[in-house]
């Protein structure tokens, strides 16, 4: 074991140093690696490109013998496949025939009818040719390749291709080699064309097979020369027979100016053809390979550029494979395996695992380390497993090597070299790329973090935050960064998404482009226009082969007038010799060259030497395949062609003419330039037609697409550059192609009226109550945003004498402030509404001047008082007697003097609450202070049309929300009410001293229920109690739990008949609402409770100052799960059926899987907005930001939309966020409320 440990340490240390090296010098190392790869791949240049093209080998005809089966010496000269006899010897007789001189009486059909007719005579000649010498008599029958049956699938070819006997093909096969059929055929062209396949084709056509020369040129030649071949396949080679045949044919049909080389035979070797049958497994393996790569690279996570790293990983594997092949070639091992076939297996064997392991390991190192150290640590952590894996794989492959099967051995060899080079590349290339990536990410991280850190107060001062156990290191799931717009994906309707996808990828253009390219490729390949032939001719002219014969261009001008006739002396052909045997060329004086362009001219050039070269390379395989003979991995020998020249007289052409020939061809000849021009014109015309049709189709397509675009795309597509009032921020949600959704979709409704920051928000769906620092409560219609009621500060008469209360307020506040022993500023703030957050990190509102500067700010209050509340003045002053109120307030305050400066239990949801601080005992307040101004509203709830307000003085008040009148008040408690819950007809109030009071609201209805709320049209009323103004409402304390908690209760939530309280004493208590009996005391947090969530389904979650989140079972009181999620307090908690959403003081919103407690992802919030979040539906999350709210898809963590609340809201963060029933969101920022309706988002999600 010690050896192993030692080895392990050494390896680890080595990897560590290597990691340091790689991270320190990334660029030189990458350059070095690139050089290595290129060097190793250099030998690959020598390898032939993969393909199925045939390979040729040329030997001389003279001393040809059938190569022996055994490989012979001097392997350098003859290729490996040149062994044994060929499948067949191919002898072609190339016939060029022309009617000369051309007669104007002749119709175009004549140009090929009689020349073609001569094929039968030639065939007869060849078949009957017998060579006899000492060794016996030989005929074609004995030598030729005997074929038996056509493949059964080729019935349509049956009539045309020879079915038995010699494989001898010629154009005569169209007419079953019978002259009579030919003569009686009214339309030769039709006969030829009827066998053409319709549409596009890739293999050799029947016409090519029979004519033996490619393309249409043979029929529509401008030269009016008909070219065809008679092709025979011989099974054995008999030089004497062939030479006698050659000489016989030459003698019969001499070709005068023919200087074709006849001394070389070409052996053509065909590689294995990949058929569909083989392609399917191959494609399958490739599909599996891609799936493997996809699933592997999908795991790369938490890096700056995921795709960059995935690409690097793939590059690593691929180049290691190339290197392996290159190295093997360099050391003399030539690959014999089919590269395309074994490639996927090689990739799979080498694998991407190491790369992924490496990435994971590096990424999981502590983030705060230096990049170098992170890389080094990550490497050394995984070094042992990497080495072990590599050794295992090498071992397995070595075992494979000893199977002694050549193919497997070769595979293993490649795999071993590939593995080693892959290791090399991983260590050098990939590690370096990873270090660069990590560095980039850290830079980005730094940029993002800096403002956040700067905005945060220094981390919790030690003495204030006693922490029993340091939170365990946080797991590090991926964090969604909001910085780059590219990361923000919009959730759009499907229709738009499809269109955007099309637009983004330019799919239509690409498909059209690819289609065009393929089409052109097919055109070139199938060659209807003779392009390939033309190119081949060009190439063969320039090739060294062509130099042997006469240069083609040189031939043409020499014999232009070789024909005796001219257009001037048309009719009488001077010597119309009927016997072709005697016919020769060059008779008669050369005519004037300029006058006779259309004279048929037979010339033999070097391009005629190897006519078969211009055929498709599939020509021979397909010919033989018809007879079930494969040429794969075999070869054929092509003998030099026998040239035959036929000159036919016009008389002969006229004689053989079929009666229908004269009327069949459309006579397009226009004037003097007759036949050939006409035919070319015809073809040109069809070409133009096709071009015009194509153009029209293209235009139509464009129009169609344009219409589609107009229909589907929004109007402002692509106009994101338009300066828009709200869209000037850098981090607008844009998707990849820069399209921003129109802002008008969601427009926030601003509710203004409060003069100071809003503290409490409460709503029951229809009404909305807000309370600001000034103690003013406003009630709004949650649907329309109208301000319904204003309830001014407690103790002030909300009446027309507005100036009076305001002044009193001010002056009395000063009066308060003067005797204050505390700081003057705080005292003044009290006058403004309160909040002696003694020592609390309360946000100071900068724009808010001290008291006396307040006058202009308060004017809206006055105005609204006047304008909006006329009806309330008419109401009888029931229960709102000013004098009585003042009186009571006085008494109350004298009774509870200790509560003047409560230790900062600011309203719930307040960020940066100072709950961490031990409650400071309020200083003794001088009893002489005026009573009422400082009893501010700390908690507020709204049910039906009753507002329950808990005040700092411990007083519970019930206000009528519509009328703005105080309906009831209860002063049983003396300690400030920190939290309220209003459920059914019960109110639960949590007090600062840790006691919990249960109140019952009793209604005595004299007249019955009347609905007051909302506009009459609204249908969906929540089933909350409504009280008419005539009701007498009383609020009675039913039970008071004196020592519910040891310390102030911070959170109170009620749902499903349970009341849950959380306190600073680290415990959560569950009470039953009906009998206010304490069911459970839940212990498990190591800090004060800061957030609690409970809903109708009895899900209970709590979050504390220790950053922990606990899920509880309400029925049993047991803890279901416990996770640490935040650095600092958990500020709010929401659960959905599948996940838990928490936000903390670290401005992070984390989404946890409820069942597995795994953090799914987290969202970095803007500073100061961490606590504001809400869930609209099961999958829609709303978070507040700086002057905006953002909508997120909970399932994916995608940002759906960001709505900006106002123009001047830059500095204001959304601190509270309330989700109403009707899919509206209310949030406060500063002194304004904003009402946002999100129907559009909802309908998209549903």
């Amino acid at each position, binding site marked *: 074991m010690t050896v192993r440990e030692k080895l392990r340490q050494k390896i680890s240390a080595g990897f560590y140093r290597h990691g340091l090296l790689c991270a320190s010098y990334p660029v030189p190392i990458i350059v070095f690696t690139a050089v290595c790869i290129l060097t190793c791949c250099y030998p690959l240049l020598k390898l032939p490109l993969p393909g199925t093209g045939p390979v040729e080998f040329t030997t001389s005809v003279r001393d040809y013998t059938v190569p022996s089966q055994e490989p012979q010496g001097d392997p350098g000269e003859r290729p490996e496949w040149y062994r044994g006899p060929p499948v067949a010897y191919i002898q072609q007789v190339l016939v060029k025939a022309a009617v000369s001189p051309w007669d104007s009486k002749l119709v175009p059909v004549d140009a090929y009818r009689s020349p073609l007719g001569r094929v039968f005579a030639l065939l007869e000649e060849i078949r009957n040719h017998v060579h006899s010498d000492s060794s016996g008599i030989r005929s074609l029958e004995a030598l030729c390749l005997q074929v038996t049956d056509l*493949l*059964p*699938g*080729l019935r349509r070819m049956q009539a045309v291709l020879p079915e038995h006997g010699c494989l001898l093909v010629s154009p005569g096969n169209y007419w079953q080699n019978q002259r009579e059929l030919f003569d009686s055929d009214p339309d030769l062209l039709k006969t030829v064309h009827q066998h053409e396949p319709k549409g596009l084709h890739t293999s050799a056509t029947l016409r090519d097979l029979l004519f033996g020369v490619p393309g249409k040129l043979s029929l529509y030649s401008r030269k009016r020369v008909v070219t065809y071949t008679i092709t025979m396949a011989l099974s054995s080679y008999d030089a004497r027979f062939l030479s006698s045949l050659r000489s016989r044919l030459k003698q019969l049909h001499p070709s005068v100016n023919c200087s074709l080389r006849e001394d070389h035979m070409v052996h053509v070797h065909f590689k*294995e*053809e990949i*058929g*569909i*049958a*083989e392609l*399917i*497994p191959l494609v*399958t*393996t490739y599909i*599996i*390979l891609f*799936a*493997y790569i996809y*699933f*592997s690279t*999908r*795991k790369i996570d938490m890096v700056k550029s995921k795709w960059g790293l995935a690409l690097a990983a793939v590059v690593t594997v691929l180049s290691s494979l190339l290197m392996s092949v290159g190295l093997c070639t360099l050391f003399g091992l030539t690959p014999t395996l089919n590269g395309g*076939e074994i490639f*996927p*297996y090689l990739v*799979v*064997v080498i*694998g*991407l*695992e190491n790369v992924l392991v490496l990435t994971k390991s590096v990424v999981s190192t502590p983030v705060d380390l230096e990049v170098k150290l992170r890389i080094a640590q990550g490497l050394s952590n995984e070094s042992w497993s990497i080495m072990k894996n590599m050794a295992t794989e090498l071992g*397995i492959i070595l*075992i*494979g090597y000893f*199977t*002694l*099967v*050549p*193919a*497997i051995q070769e595979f293993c060899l490649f795999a071993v070299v590939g593995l080693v080079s892959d290791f090399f590349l991983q260590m050098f290339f990939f590690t370096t790329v990873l270090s660069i990536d990590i560095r980039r990410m850290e830079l980005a991280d730094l940029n993002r973090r800096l403002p956040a850190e700067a905005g945060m107060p220094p981390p919790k001062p030690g003495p204030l935050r006693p922490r029993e156990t340091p939170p365990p290191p946080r797991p590090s799931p991926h964090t969604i960064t909001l910085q780059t717009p590219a990361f923000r994906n919009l959730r759009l309707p499907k229709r738009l998404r499809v269109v955007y996808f099309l637009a983004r990828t330019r799919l239509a253009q690409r498909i059209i482009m690819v289609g065009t390219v393929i089409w052109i490729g097919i055109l070139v390949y199938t060659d209807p226009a003779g392009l390939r032939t033309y190119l081949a001719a060009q190439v063969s002219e320039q090739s060294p082969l062509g130099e042997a014969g006469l240069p083609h261009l040189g031939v043409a001008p020499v014999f232009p007038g070789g024909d005796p006739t001219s257009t001037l002396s048309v009719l009488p052909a001077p010597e119309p010799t009927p016997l072709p045997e005697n016919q020769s060329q060059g008779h008669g004086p050369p005519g004037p060259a300029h006058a006779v362009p259309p004279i048929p001219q037979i010339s033999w050039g070097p391009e005629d030497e190897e006519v078969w070269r211009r055929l498709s390379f599939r020509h021979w*395989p*397909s010919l033989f*395949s018809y007879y*079930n003979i*494969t*040429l*794969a991995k075999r070869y054929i020998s092509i003998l030099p062609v026998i040239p035959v020249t036929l000159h036919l007289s016009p008389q002969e052409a006229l004689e053989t003419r079929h009666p229908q020939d004269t009327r069949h061809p459309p006579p397009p000849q226009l004037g003097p330039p007759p036949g050939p021009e006409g035919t070319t014109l015809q073809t040109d015309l069809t070409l133009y037609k096709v071009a015009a049709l194509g153009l029209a189709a293209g235009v139509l397509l464009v129009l169609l697409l344009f219409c589609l675009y107009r229909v589907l795309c929004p109007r402002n597509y692509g106009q994101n550059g338009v300066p828009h009032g709200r869209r000037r921020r850098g981090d607008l949600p844009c998707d990849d192609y820069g399209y921003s959704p129109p802002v008008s979709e969601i427009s926030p409704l601003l509710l203004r009226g409060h003069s100071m920051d809003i503290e409490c928000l409460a709503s029951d769906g229809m009404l909305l109550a807000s309370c600001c620092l000034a103690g003013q409560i406003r009630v709004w219609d949650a649907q329309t945003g109208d301000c319904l009621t204003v309830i001014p500060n407690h103790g002030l008469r909300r009446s027309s004498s507005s100036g009076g209360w305001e002044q009193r307020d001010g002056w009395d506040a000063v009066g308060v402030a003067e005797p204050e022993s505390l700081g003057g500023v705080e005292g003044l703030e009290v006058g403004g509404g309160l909040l002696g957050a003694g020592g609390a990190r309360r946000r100071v509102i900068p724009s808010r001047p001290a008291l006396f500067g307040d006058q202009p700010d308060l004017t809206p209050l006055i105005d609204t008082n006047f304008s909006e509340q006329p009806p309330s003045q008419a109401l009888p002053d029931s229960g709102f007697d000013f004098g009585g109120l003042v009186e009571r307030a006085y008494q109350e305050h004298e009774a509870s003097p200790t509560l003047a400066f409560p230790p900062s239990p600011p309203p719930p949801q307040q960020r940066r609450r100072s709950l961490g601080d031990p409650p400071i005992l309020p200083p003794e307040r001088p009893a002489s202070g005026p009573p009422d101004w400082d009893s501010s509203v700390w908690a507020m709830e709204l049910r039906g049309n009753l507002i329950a307000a808990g005040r700092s003085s411990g007083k519970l008040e019930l206000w009528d929300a519509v009328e703005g009148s105080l309906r009831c008040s209860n002063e049983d408690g003396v300690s400030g009410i920190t939290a309220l819950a209003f459920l059914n007809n019960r109110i639960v109030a949590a007090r600062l001293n840790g006691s919990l009071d249960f109140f019952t609201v009793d209604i005595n209805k004299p007249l019955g229920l009347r609905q007051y709320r909302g506009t009459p049209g609204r249908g969906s009323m929540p089933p909350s109690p409504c009280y008419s103004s005539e009701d007498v409402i009383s609020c009675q304390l039913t039970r008071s739990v004196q020592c519910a908690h040891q310390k102030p209760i911070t959170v109170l939530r009620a749902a499903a008949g349970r009341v849950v309280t959380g306190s600073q004493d680290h415990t959560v208590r569950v009470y039953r609402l009906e009998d206010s009996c304490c069911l459970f005391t839940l212990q498990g947090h190591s800090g004060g409770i800061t957030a609690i969530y409970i809903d109708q389904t009895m899900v209970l979650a709590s979050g504390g100052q220790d950053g922990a989140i606990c899920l509880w079972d309400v029925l049993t009181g047991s803890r279901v799960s416990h996770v640490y999620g935040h650095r600092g307090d958990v500020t709010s908690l929401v659960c959905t*059926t*599948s996940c838990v959403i928490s936000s903390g003081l670290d401005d992070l919103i984390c989404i946890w*899987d*409820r*069942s*597995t407690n*795994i953090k799914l992802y987290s969202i970095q919030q803007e500073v100061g907005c961490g606590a504001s979040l809400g869930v609209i539906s099961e999958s829609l999350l709303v978070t507040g930001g700086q002057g905006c709210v953002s909508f997120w898809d909970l*399932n994916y963590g995608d940002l759906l939309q960001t709505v900006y609340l106002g123009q001047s809201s830059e500095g204001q963060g959304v601190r509270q966020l309330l989700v109403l029933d009707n899919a509206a969101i209310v949030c406060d920022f500063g002194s304004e409320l904003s009402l946002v309706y999100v129907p559009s988002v909802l309908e998209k999600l549903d």
Partner: protein
Amino acid sequence: MADTWKVRGGQEKGGSGLAPRGPYIAVITNRTVNLLIRGVMLFSVGVFLALVLNLLQVQRNVTLFPPDVIASIFSSAWWMPPCCGTAAAMIGLLYPCIDSRLGEPHKFKREWSSVMRCVAVFVGINHASAKVDFANNVQLSLTLAALSVGLWWTFDRSRSGFGLGVAIAFLATLTTQLLVYNGVFQYTSPDFLYIRSWLPCIFFAGVITMGNIGRQLAMYECKVVQEKTHQD
């Protein structure tokens, strides 16, 4: 149920970080429906592999240019792919079931990439058996046996997997023997009674592969079941 639940939970934790909850999986909450879907998926995979691999086997005896190439894909009897598919579905469902019965959840390499690798190696083994020229049948069979065991070691490493693989391979070989004996079909050059001697190895590798796929698919079901339990 409580036991299986726990087992599933453990299995879940093994690989849950890798398989993000897809929206479509969440839809499948019904257990039977889930089982059905898994079965259908496994069946189609089995049919597909059977067709492709059969093509590989047949290919060697096929001439280069068969008259209609498409027909050679279905060159085997019609009942062959469905049989393979059914077997694949059974094996794929059996593996996770046995895992949970034995109480030893399979935690080794629970990732789709690993499964893909396994499938690729399986196809490779078939490829080798069809294409590589071996000196004799014993060598071929031994090589394939080694490769199959290597496959198990690389991707499975569970005793239950090995046992099940061997058992099913034995059964399948026996079935094939019986079929051939009764003349339903035959091998061109049988060297082991009536069949090829490498057949058990191929069966074994196939069982391991399908088991791997089945286990991976079952992980989704675990997730769904778990979620449901939590909701209730």
